[in-house]
């Protein structure tokens, strides 16, 4: 069972091909991904409303595809409207925030109002993190909303050691593995400190090929039980995906 909690749909500078639903589905087939939680590249890079709408259409194309509602505090009302619209849609299973592209920290006051609404809707928070400041902002959100599951994408990037430390301090912080700084001890150390139950598989597709994250996991040298937890079993505890627990028991 492979559940990718970090996927995107949209256009990227580094690609030479247009992203299409057919292409996305083909990647799921090729890498045998059972469920993919997708946020919109358009919503992250450009416009929340039209981007989230694209993903709402995409999730209708294949039962393996689930949405994450992208929020941006600079477009607060539009983000709140999308949370209310898609949060009640069973195919959207998380909220996504990218502080770097939005130009605002995760714990900025306006953003917190959006995250609180997502928490009320039972949506876990998917948070891009790269560097000390973004990890600390994530930890601040974790302190404010201790019941909300929060997933630090990229494990904090170059601040992965700090991410592990903060996740040890806050039981609602979890780590997702994909990163362009493929340090050899990163994943293994996260598993040793936090337990494999707190570590999650993400690919960053379609920006990245799933082969990259699969290679990271292969090279971590984990035992098969831990590997299976990270690949998908852990995600079933938090997200409304096949085998995952239903919303009302959250």
């Amino acid at each position, binding site marked *: 069972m492979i559940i990718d909690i970090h996927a995107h749909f949209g256009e990227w500078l580094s690609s*030479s091909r247009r992203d299409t639903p057919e292409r996305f589905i083909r990647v799921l087939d090729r890498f045998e991904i059972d469920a993919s939680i997708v946020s919109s590249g358009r919503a992250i890079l450009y416009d929340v409303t039209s981007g989230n709408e694209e993903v709402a259409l995409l999730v209708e194309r294949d039962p393996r595809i689930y949405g994450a509602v992208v929020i941006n505090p600079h477009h607060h009302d539009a983000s709140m409207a999308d949370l209310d619209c898609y949060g009640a849609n069973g195919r959207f299973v998380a909220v996504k925030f990218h502080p770097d592209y939005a130009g605002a920290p995760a714990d900025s006051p306006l953003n917190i109002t959006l995250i609180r609404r997502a928490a009320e809707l039972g949506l876990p928070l998917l948070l891009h993190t790269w560097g000390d400041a973004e990890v600390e902002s994530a930890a601040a959100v974790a302190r404010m909303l201790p019941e909300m599951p929060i997933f630090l994408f990229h494990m904090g990037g170059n601040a992965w050691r700090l991410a592990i430390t903060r996740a040890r301090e806050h039981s609602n912080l979890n780590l997702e593995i994909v990163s362009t*700084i*493929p*340090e050899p001890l990163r994943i293994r150390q996260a598993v040793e400190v936090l337990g494999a139950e707190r570590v999650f598989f993400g690919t960053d597709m379609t*920006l*990245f090929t799933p082969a990259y994250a699969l290679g990271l996991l292969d*090279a*971590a040298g984990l035992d098969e039980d831990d590997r299976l937890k990270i690949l998908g079993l852990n995600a079933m505890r938090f997200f409304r995906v096949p085998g995952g627990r239903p919303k009302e028991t959250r």
Partner: protein
Amino acid sequence: MRLFDFSLLVGTDPRSSAVATEEALVRYLDAAGAGGIVVSLAGAYYYYEAGNDETLKVAARDGRLLPGMTVDPRRVESADVDWPAAAKKFRALVLFPAMQSWHLSHPAVAAIAAGAGAAGLPIVVHVARSGDVGGLSGLARQVKVPVVAVGIAYGALSEVIAGAKAAGNLLIGMSLFGGLDNLETLVARLGADRIVYDSGEARFTHGPALKMLEAAEIDGPAREAIAIGNARRIFGGAL
């Protein structure tokens, strides 16, 4: 699949608590069936002559490792290298502009590249910043030896394609081209004979690079060329 890795690193990285041990490197060579060009990080971060001494010792202990010599163009004595003598001890010149914060337009670099090129040493350059590959393409056009760019991230895809088209002796390391179709795009636009395998082991893990090469939708001869074939063309068939 046998591998030749154009980026093997041992030593300490002051920007991380990571220590790239020789033992970890040997484990990788054993497990992956790899060989490659090794350089001590002491040469990148501290003093190149000290690093070169360490590199020679590491390579002498394992025949799969070809010693890469490095020079820091910021040091005055980099102009005094005896390149014919260096070419008897080392198999490549390896430069670290991003790690050492100098640009490829540094005037000393052209003389270094000319010296290494005249001595027949292939040149491997660890690049990271936007514009590095463009500068390297210009440098490659001034020498006749192969020039290999390693450690390039996916965001530089268009720069890499344009730079490699402008310099026929410029080869591209694939380790950080993690974009969904990056490797396929590079092979289609440049040809597999222009792409090489690199990983950064033991400073970084080879996992992503190896998995991307295995999973790429390219034909067998192209995969073989990237894995080791192009390196054989450069260093000889006995790799």
